[in-house]
């Protein structure tokens, strides 16, 4: 099951990495080991997500790469940063 935040993350990655579409990205796709996002691109991804999700306020100091590895675990972490409930 793909959540709203999953979709936003996948869309943001497609845009960030200039991919044709998001068909190759699933919740299990690993952010660093499969997609090759380095810390610079990861920061760009966070900022893009802040733009896409107005309720999202990321404190990068609390968001370390070791806390997530896949789209799914990033999604869970992003959900915890949302200021209010978002329809899943």
């Amino acid at each position, binding site marked *: 099951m793909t959540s709203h935040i999953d979709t936003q993350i996948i869309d943001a990655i497609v845009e*960030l990495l200039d991919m044709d579409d998001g068909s190759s990205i699933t919740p299990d796709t690993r952010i660093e080991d499969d997609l*090759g996002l380095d810390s*610079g691109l*990861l920061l*760009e991804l966070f*900022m893009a997500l802040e733009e896409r999700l107005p309720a999202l306020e990321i404190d*990068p100091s609390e968001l*370390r790469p070791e806390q997530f590895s896949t789209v799914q675990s990033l999604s869970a972490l992003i959900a915890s940063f949302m200021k209010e409930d978002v329809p899943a």
Partner: protein
Amino acid sequence: MTSGQRDPQALLREIHRGFRGNLGDAYRTATASLSFDTLYHGALALAERLQTLPSGATPRPVLIWGHKDPRYMIAYWACLLAGRPLVPTERDTPPERLRQIVQGCDACAVLVAEGDPADFTHVSGALQDLELPIWGVDPSLMPAAEAITAPPVTSEDVAYIMFSSGTLGQPKGIQVSYGNLADFILWQQALLKDAPFAAVSGNIRHCFDVSLFELWSAWQRCCPITALNHADFANSTAYIERLQADGVGLWVSTPSITRLMLRNRRFNGERLPALRTFLFCGEALSKQVVEALFERFPNCRVINTYGPTECTVAVTSLEITRAHLDAPQDLPIGYARSGTTLVATPDPGHGEIEIQGASVGLGYLNLPEKQAAAFPRPKCYRTGDRGRCTPEGLWYFEGRIDREIKVQGVRIDLDDIEAHIRRQPGIEDAVVEPYVLRGEPRALNAYVFGQHTATALQALAEQMARDLPPYLVPRFWYAGFESGLNRNSKIDRAWLAEAAKTANHRHVHSHSGTETLS
């Protein structure tokens, strides 16, 4: 004013004397600070100690190892005061490369400017059996005398050696003289004379010569540097808060670093009202970056510069205006700086950029062939860059003549990396190309020929990571292309896209925690 009118040693000592008794901060990290007075005394004390090292006919270089630590500043000045060529290296310089650099430049000591002052195992492990003094830097040391009695240096003596990519054999050591350095110091002072700033950014690693803009602009005005530890890049919000608290007014960076900061919506003139001047060097500056800065920081000044490390940081400059953004051409790199001339060859006005004059450095260490090719005459350097010049002397950068590219400000010779991969056992051939996003190289793709599996690609990437700095290790590895795909003499984009799509094996090399920005 040109360097010929100024004795470099006198200029440096005058700047250093200005630190004395100044209790204001010279360097600020997230957790530590260093006052100018401590920098003054600490550098003198360490310079005295450097004087005790054996000296040959010419002073042997001293390596500085560390990353964005106040002790780096002390080590830097100690070398300058003692007349020892300084060789800046970084925390993530791989052990084998550190060894090559030490041996390549015949260093006489290593100054460890970070970490636990009692634990040098990370450096000594790499240099065991070289019998080299490895010293820590103690900011609390006081000098025996208030002035250094170092031997006089001339304009032609080596002030620093920067090691550039060059993955084959010895890394390439680029030597810059005291005369070059003095000429640079006076030029950047003139360039920034009207810029209002009382604190300077600390974006650039000290092993990258663009950092000289940050260091010397701050040292000349005795203002603090707000240093960014590159392990904290992901936390740009915290850095923006520090820039705000410190009132940083001059921002020096590569366009890549600024583009990254601009992704953080907090990077704006409302939060950072003191930040009025942006100086770029190290990469081609895009109109998008300047447009964004003009929007976020109304009334800011943007200065673009260009130059190779071989010619002391930068040799052209100009302030970018709305007219440059509205013009159909790419942004210009500026006019030649005073004391330096640029010419295009073979056609005047369009061709390879050749640099002549006071900024041209001493060239490569122990590489006579490369030296002869790049420095055909004294005080003349052939850049390998293609440029165009208007009748008024305004220059435009048009790319490289060879296969050297820049990824986030770091010079990378694709041919060198290919050659390094080819030397590994079982490799038929390899092609390395930049991984480009929105027109900017962001990482490297490696296409490997021969019988390989994803596991073999991983082993290859890991071997490369042991041999080379992180930024030279390709991130995306491909093998097992559709049959019939052989290496063309000229690789085109369609071929690469096809190889990536049909590759049976793909490996993503993650640098896990290490930073690739400069």
